[in-house]
């Protein structure tokens, strides 16, 4: 997003990418079947989300680039070493943070307030949704913002299993509404948006119009996680980098592992040192402004590794906050077998690959009235149905059939196909002082760069929230006439996902209104170094249940507007 915004504003931009170049148009295995891949496309430590997942040289382990955890801490750090990073494989769920989410401390006395409010970011949410293309609806539910008319693309019709879930959730008081996903259900209006998004900027309008016209609407067939060669979903490699390059203002250098931001005697950033991975040589790129968007933890790592006489504890770290208040999303889920879905007439159930519907958090008032034993909310991602059979299909069918094999097994497979549904909670984590990353004093990676060491702890709020998730999902499955798969475990300590496992890590370089307790000001500009900005998840002050990508993009756009304005007036 930053490369695009700065380039269309006429600035010369150098993008340094730690991984290899990647082009979804040429590289996406759109229709390949599981049978054509190793292990029927199943996940391995090399390709954790399956063979066809878009991720290149990534996962919770990257060979040659380790990280460590402090004793007693469990944390997993996902990286993707490729152009466009994780935007290539993400879930596309694009929920706005609501007004409560920016002011959590004011609301319940926990965590910290953001230096900005919903109204500050709302115009950028509007613009970002129009730029990248997001489907969804505006339902007017509490702290679940909609969008101005005409901004969201129409949501896809719900699948059978989603309609059945809604029917049984309504009596439970749980709302089931269209999800918001960065997938084009119709083509973007290339005649209208460029002028609206970039008024008075012919260059921006031209490259954006071309980019929008190069994108096709979803054709309802293939998995978003593989990437999309028709550019129907949002990946920065199909949506932001092509128009950025078309300005002629952007150079991309791949295999460039940034290790340090340099400064001059006055404390201004002067550029970055990076390792050219192909030659293993150190290179330097000079810059008037440095923007870090390396992903939350990698950005913190670069700052911590940028030590100097002026900043002995790492660049922009006079507050000592860099690396601190690392957050992930609370995750817990179960699945159920739903007899009502047995023997459905065969029909195409693929849709837009990911969620058409979801459940936003619905118990704000109960929480406010102290009727729940945890402070923050979660939303529910759920699904099932007659999707493409993949590895693991019918694993565990033994217990449903009393051990069927032979003809009976084949009959059982026909009966049970498409009848399993999953329910996954995605909840807010409150930042705490026990969850952070720092430089490991001893370990370096294969490029000689000191690595991160993670410390991690959930608080009781997250543990109880996870317990509430699975208890609620069991109620939903029972209400649907179904049966929970396996033994229902409701102990939050046992069901909560590990830190980093949901891959929503944010924080570590947080923004704020006080330089003593934050690293960045409300423009994601370092308090200590005025030509240094951060445009990934690192500036997050809290981590609402809303998946972070849309907010990262909106915040990055707002930051870039500030960068351009400050450069114009000669302040940086």
């Amino acid at each position: 997003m930053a490369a695009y915004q700065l380039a269309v504003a006429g600035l010369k931009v150098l993008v340094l990418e730690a991984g290899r170049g990647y082009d979804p148009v040429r590289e996406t295995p759109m229709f390949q079947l599981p049978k054509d891949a190793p292990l029927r496309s199943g996940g391995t430590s090399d390709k954790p989300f399956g063979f066809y997942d878009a991720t290149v040289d990534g996962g919770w382990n990257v060979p040659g680039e380790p990280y460590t955890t402090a004793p007693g801490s469990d944390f997993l750090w996902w990286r993707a070493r490729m152009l466009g990073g994780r935007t290539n494989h993400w879930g596309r769920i694009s929920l706005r943070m609501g007004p409560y989410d920016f002011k959590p401390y004011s609301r319940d006395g926990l965590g910290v307030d953001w230096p900005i409010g919903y109204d500050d970011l709302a115009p950028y949410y509007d613009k970002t949704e129009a730029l990248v293309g997001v489907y969804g609806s505006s339902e007017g539910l509490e702290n679940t913002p909609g969008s101005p008319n005409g901004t969201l693309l129409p949501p896809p019709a719900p699948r059978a299993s989603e309609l059945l879930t809604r029917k049984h959730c309504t009596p439970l008081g749980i709302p089931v509404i269209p999800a918001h996903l960065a997938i084009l259900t119709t083509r973007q209006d290339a005649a209208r948006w460029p002028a609206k998004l970039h008024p008075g900027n012919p260059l921006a309008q031209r490259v954006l119009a071309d980019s929008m016209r190069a994108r096709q609407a979803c054709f309802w067939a293939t998995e978003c996680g593989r990437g999309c060669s028709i550019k129907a979903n949002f990946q920065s490699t199909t949506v932001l980098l092509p128009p950025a390059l078309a300005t002629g203002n952007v150079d991309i250098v791949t295999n460039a592992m940034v290790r340090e931001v340099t400064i001059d005697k006055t404390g201004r950033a002067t550029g970055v040192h990076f390792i050219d991975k192909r030659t293993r040589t150190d290179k330097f790129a000079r810059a008037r402004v440095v923007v870090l968007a390396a992903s939350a933890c990698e950005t913190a790592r670069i700052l911590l590794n940028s030590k100097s006489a002026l900043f002995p504890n790492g660049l922009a770290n006079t507050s000592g906050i860099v690396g601190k208040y690392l957050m992930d999303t609370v995750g817990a889920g179960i699945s159920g077998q739903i007899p009502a879905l047995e023997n459905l007439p065969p029909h195409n159930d693929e849709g837009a690959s990911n969620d058409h519907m979801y459940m936003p958090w619905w118990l704000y008032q109960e929480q406010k009235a102290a009727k729940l034993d945890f402070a923050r909310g979660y939303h529910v991602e759920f699904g099932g149905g007659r999707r493409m059979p993949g590895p693991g299909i019918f694993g565990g069918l033994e217990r449903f059939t009393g051990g069927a094999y032979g003809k009976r097994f084949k009959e059982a497979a026909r009966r049970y196909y498409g009848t399993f549904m999953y329910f996954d909670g995605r909840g807010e984590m409150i930042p705490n002082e026990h969850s952070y990353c720092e430089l490991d004093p001893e370990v370096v990676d294969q490029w000689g760069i000191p690595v991160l060491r993670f410390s991690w702890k959930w608080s009781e709020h997250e543990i109880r929230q996870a317990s509430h998730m699975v208890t609620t999902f069991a109620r939903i499955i029972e209400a649907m006439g179904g049966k929970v798969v396996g033994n229902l475990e409701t102990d939050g300590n046992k069901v909560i996902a590990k830190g980093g496992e949901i891959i929503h890590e944010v924080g570590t370089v947080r923004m704020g209104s006080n330089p003593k307790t934050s690293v960045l000001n409300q423009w994601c500009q370092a308090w200590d170094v005025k030509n240094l900005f951060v445009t990934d998840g690192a500036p997050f002050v809290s981590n609402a249940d809303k998946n972070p990508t849309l907010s990262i993009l909106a915040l990055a756009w707002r930051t870039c507007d500030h960068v351009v304005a400050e450069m114009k007036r000669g302040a940086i």
Partner: protein
Amino acid sequence: MTDTTNSKLDTGGPTRRDVLKAAGLGGLALPILDRTARLVEGRKPEVVQLPAEGPRGTPTDPDLIHPKIWWEKVLSAEELVTLVALCDLIIPADHKSPSASQVGVPDYINEWASAPYEWAREGLTRIRDGLAWLNTESERRFGRAFAGLGAPEQTAIADDICYQPKAKPELLAAARFFDLIRDLSSTGFYTTREGMKDLGYIGNVPMPRWDGPPPEVLKHLGL
């Protein structure tokens, strides 16, 4: 939506991949140009190509368009004979679809057990133990190797190990093995075109629009 638009996978006819290949497009994009927009603007939209250096063909950066297995399969010919018999006992041919071995399931299980990952080492041991046990048990009870037994004899052995909760304690290891092969056979079988067709899977075919489930599905669900 009608069956003609979305059942290509089931007909065994050309897949989109075949069609794309025939059109010289490999497994890649469907470039659909917006000609109206071009005319209105009176100029050709700029084509921007991103840097792409891959794939390098390593385990973490494999060629996704032309997948290949990069490790040796280690089960012996004799082990595979037993495995074929067991897979086909679990998934036999019937009126809807072929048997497990007819769509390459034993070969997939060999690939799985031989994979260069930690879990496969344990898996390989369990499969080798299990196949050996199966033949020993067959010799002990019927005087022949498992693959040489008739259906009633094979069934007699399988009935003792097909359900872990009811297996005798001394047969628990064999029952765990049986369930592992059943799970792997399911994956191997139902991820093929034949297996998908058996289940009535419809999808992986581009459609001009998405209308949600057809009326007969909603009726079936009482929605």
